[in-house]
């Protein structure tokens, strides 16, 4: 069984985001790029499954759609333990293009489980995983908080409103993972970093799928009004303000 983990390359979450060109483009100066936190967790889970011989997981690959400048992030995934990587060489303009490109990687390979994160921390799309599944005409399961392989069968726990469900789907399938899939992201050890240097990154040409949408401008969030402080000895006054001023209770 082979697993493909789709990784997106995002600004570190503590980055102060700024825009240039009259608020139409992200200012990438000084940005520290990292593997999207969800993807780091799904990679961790994929490697855990591979470590357990009883699951029959043989290969864990990663795929990224982006320009050559993203290779350090891909190398990091290889250093954490992925066996090989694919990069579709393009600057995607929207999630539709990303998914179309990932579909090419999946079609050319032999993958039983394809994992995506629930959202990228940059454009907060929550789109790519389900789009990819539709491009491939495969089943998808969203909001996965646990993934197990038992006796050759997949057991998937997904979150539903007010609870969880254990479901099964035939493979190949696209799994969209969220909190719970792995506890802590695995980090690269020195040996992994050395080995990553010689692992292959296959560069795939971009398919011709046009973008359906375009980002035209950005705006910073509205500054919030300054905080109104209430004397702790008179804390009850807060409730009165919430009732009569903010009118929310």
């Amino acid at each position: 069984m082979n697993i493909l983990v789709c990784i997106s390359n995002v600004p570190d979450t503590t980055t102060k985001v700024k825009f240039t060109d009259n608020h139409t483009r992200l200012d990438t100066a000084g940005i520290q790029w990292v593997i999207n936190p969800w993807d780091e967790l799904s990679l961790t889970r994929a490697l855990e499954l591979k470590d357990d011989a009883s699951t029959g997981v043989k290969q864990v690959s990663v795929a990224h759609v982006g320009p050559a400048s993203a290779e350090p992030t891909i190398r990091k995934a290889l250093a954490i333990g992925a066996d090989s990587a694919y990069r579709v060489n393009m600057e995607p303009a929207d999630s539709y293009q990303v998914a179309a490109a990932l579909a090419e990687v999946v079609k050319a390979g032999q993958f039983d489980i394809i994992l995506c994160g629930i959202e990228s921390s940059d454009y907060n799309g929550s789109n790519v995983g389900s789009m990819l599944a539709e491009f491939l005409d495969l089943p998808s399961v969203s909001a996965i908080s646990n993934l197990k392989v038992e006796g050759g069968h997949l057991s998937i726990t997904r979150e539903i409103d007010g609870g969880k469900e254990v479901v099964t789907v035939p493979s190949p399938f696209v799994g969209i993972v969220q909190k719970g899939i792995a506890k802590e992201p695995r980090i690269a050890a020195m040996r992994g970093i050395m080995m990553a240097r010689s692992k292959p990154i296959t560069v795939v040409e971009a398919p011709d799928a046009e973008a359906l949408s375009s980002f035209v401008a950005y705006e910073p969030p509205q500054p919030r009004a300054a905080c109104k402080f209430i004397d702790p000895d008179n804390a009850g006054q807060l409730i009165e303000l919430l009732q009569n001023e903010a009118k929310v209770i």
Partner: protein
Amino acid sequence: MSVIIYAENWDGKFKKLTFELASYGAKVAEMLGTSLVAVSIGKVEESELKELGKYGVQKVVATDHELLRPLDSKAYTSLIAQVAQKEDAKVIVMASNNAGKSIAPRLSVKMKAALGSGVNKLPLSTEPFVVSKKVFSGNAFAHLSLNTEVKIITLMQNSFDLVAKPVEPEIEQFSVKLDAADVKTQVKEVQKHDGKMLLTDAEIVISGGRGMKSAENWQPILELAELLNAATACSRPVSDEGWRPHEEHTGQTGKIIAPNLYFAIGISGATQHLAGVSSSKYIVAINSDKSAPIFEAAQYGIVGDAMKVLPKLVEAVKEIKTK
């Protein structure tokens, strides 16, 4: 021509969220000079379907099939696409929740229709069709132009007020042909925490952080939540420590919520935490450290020891409740 909303139901009932979608859809239909249709999937009584008419839904296309009881994103997508074609939909609106996030992207590919996900207000313009959405986990908003004839929107919860617009909706039963091979998702087991106010439904959320010190100290938070009919939440370290269950964790790697009122108690206000709660209408911060970043995001603040402040709040709420 039409605007379509996907009216999800929970055990046969709609929620405020469904009516937010209807109100939003009615407004978009007005902007485009067209009518509003709702699609309902599952077992919903006619009287409940009619409720949608209160918020401007002119027609309800209802379908039910035993095979569609568990959410199977592929089967749902194909069904909504059929209705969209039949009704000549120009815009399809869904909630930005579990179901919407698993259906809308598939529908986008199936119909080759541009998708704006996590939209937070009405379209900024219709020619070109530009929507506003949260990006960088709340640190900015983007204007996204949807460049195809059919557009799909998923709307953030609590970002559009209900607008009453009573009409008598036409109800159409739509039958689907499905066989077991079309539905791939099989549910083996369901665990529900019944009777608990859902974090994603609550108008008021009381959340505690590491400053609460231990699980035993949660009592006044639970009491306050009970009194205010609120849900409880927590920061990530709190769920990691096991002081509170995982499904309460809010933030970038937890739940993203937008209640009317969010109490952050003993929470420092890290960007990753704020990413999940910054869309709340009001944030109240209670923290012993005056320089905690949470006060920059809050409208009301108390600098003090949560253990001393919470009992006073409980008393004050009891007082207004008895008035």
